[in-house]
């Protein structure tokens, strides 16, 4: 199917999830992503094997997803920042029990109740695991309507392939924006590799246990190392970034999601002024595409990290560069959305201050 459809971001995620074979959704509504549970309620009602549950709480929602995942379903929940904090218990259990699930965080301004404006304040929470214990969550950061669809499909694939929770990290801007999207064909669930670990009744096979309690420290250590090896494999296999006008760049902006789109607009303006500026946009936030940045540092001596927060991803950029190049930061937290003009001014002032126009 290659028909272009004009849809709101939150609904794009929902439609893409259904096409990815998601048959279980439990959620608790919170602005700015209410359109997603609303969409899922209708979509699941139209499927004979679909389940939608409006859960009594974020905790219940993520734990229903935990159960559905144990039973073999492609399962999803969604929320926005304060709700995602509440889900962290379940995300930690999913990671520990090696269960696939997709969690959508449409970020809003924080901390606390914050506001309902677009923000990127949850980068640390998303990429550092978020809940308790030594684990990671795959984090995908879409920037365009089409990417919301494509990365939602990927999220379910990664979750199953690595048996681990995957987070789609969007923001209020992306959730609300209407954009044309071409959806991939629906997955045929019967063609997916069968899951030989699920709980579906111990018929003609030994009984199975899915758990995260490992009382022996030695066995728990081994489980942690097993997870660590898996995370290392994931890091080597799926780290991904988009580059834009970096070939001749003297300054590279590093930004993801909505911030990257704003940065693109700013880069276009800077280019019109003759400034050689490019963009590196991490598509996976964990694993972080550090190698792409490190390789770039051979030619680029100045990176400007732009985030809609007070500076979170900038730490990963610095860690990736290991001092090879200069890292600069510009951020607007709290739900303030910069204009391309504003970022253009930040770019040009940095450009001239660093004398990047000189050969």
């Amino acid at each position, binding site marked *: 199917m290659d028909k272009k459809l004009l849809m709101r971001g939150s609904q794009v995620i929902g439609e893409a999830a259904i096409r990815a074979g998601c048959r*279980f959704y439990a959620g608790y509504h919170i602005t700015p992503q209410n359109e997603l549970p609303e969409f899922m309620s209708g979509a699941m009602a139209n499927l004979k094997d679909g389940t939608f*549950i409006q859960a009594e709480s974020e905790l219940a929602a993520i734990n*229903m997803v*935990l*159960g*559905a995942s144990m039973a073999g379903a492609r399962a999803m929940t969604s929320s926005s920042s304060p709700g995602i904090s509440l889900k962290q218990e379940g995300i930690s259990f999913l990671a520990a*029990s090696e269960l696939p699930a997709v969690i959508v965080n449409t970020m809003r301004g924080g901390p606390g109740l914050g506001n309902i404006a677009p923000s990127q304040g949850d980068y640390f929470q998303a990429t550092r695991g978020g809940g308790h214990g030594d684990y990671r969550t795959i984090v995908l950061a879409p920037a365009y309507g089409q990417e919301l669809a494509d990365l939602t499909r990927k999220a379910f694939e990664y979750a199953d392939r690595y048996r681990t929770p995957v987070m789609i990290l969007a923001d209020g801007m992306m959730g609300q924006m209407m954009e044309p999207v071409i959806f991939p064909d629906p997955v045929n669930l019967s063609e997916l590799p069968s899951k030989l670990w699920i*709980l579906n*009744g111990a018929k003609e096979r030994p009984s199975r246990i899915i758990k995260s*309690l490992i009382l022996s420290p030695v066995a728990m250590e081994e489980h942690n190392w097993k997870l660590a090896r898996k995370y290392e494999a994931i890091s080597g296999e799926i780290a991904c970034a988009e580059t834009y006008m970096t070939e001749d760049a003297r300054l590279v902006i590093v930004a993801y999601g909505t911030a990257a789109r704003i940065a693109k607009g700013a880069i276009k303006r800077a280019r019109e002024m003759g400034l050689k500026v490019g963009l590196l946009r991490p598509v996976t936030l964990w694993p972080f595409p550090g190698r792409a940045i490190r390789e770039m540092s051979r030619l680029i001596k100045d990176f400007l990290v732009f985030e809609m927060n007070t500076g979170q991803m900038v730490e990963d950029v610095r860690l990736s560069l290991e001092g090879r190049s200069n890292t600069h930061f510009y951020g607007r937290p709290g739900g303030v959305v910069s204009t391309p003009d504003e970022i253009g001014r930040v770019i040009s002032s940095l450009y001239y201050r660093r004398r990047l126009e000189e050969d």
Partner: protein
Amino acid sequence: MEKVVFKRPRYMKEAPFHYCPGCGHSIIHRLMAEVIEELGIGEKTIGVPPAGCAVLAYDYFDIDMGEAPHGRGAAVATGIKRTLPDKIVFSYQGDGDIAAIGTAETIHAANRGENITVIFVNNSCYGMTGGQMAPTTLLDQNSTTTPGGRDKDRDGTPIDLSEMLALTQGAVYIERTAVNSIKNIRKTKKAITKAFKIQMAGLGFSLVEILSPCPTNWKMSPIDACRWIDEDVAQTFPLKVIKDETD
């Protein structure tokens, strides 16, 4: 010829229980395994153990088992059951798990009429963590967090979770039993059987609350603990059918 009068139920693993001597969990586990065998549902039953003394239930039941975070048994069971409606799904929860940290999950599962069975083991304290006050701790009962006994003004009164759940439209069958005497053990097995049968018939939410001795934290001999259930615990939590919509 030898006649077998007592044997390990088919769906119990060959593993010695870690429970304290005189603990009710061992009896309840056995009853459940017997019922699962008698109903012929061992190959399609999925259990959800709690956090608490019974967290290791998966080491004893020879059926598929999936651990829930503390209090979330009903939510996890909901996710499993909705995904596999033809399977039999139960959660096994203690009083602190179900009536404190997991109250919301339980009430809403009952209210949705989830077609699951909940085994609610009430020993009026938090066993595994060492005997702190539970929502079900009796007035004046000693615990490690109620010096001088549970005080109504300071600590509130024991919560009647089963009676509360009975108020929901979705709850079909709720009975409170005990495992402190042979008679009560038999009644408990009957109640567990009925609860599973209700689920097999697709009728909705069923729950059996079982008053269970915790001699360790009650600081009593097993025999005194059984006696105390009759004399005190069952006075606050009367043994009875609390709701039965199948009559």
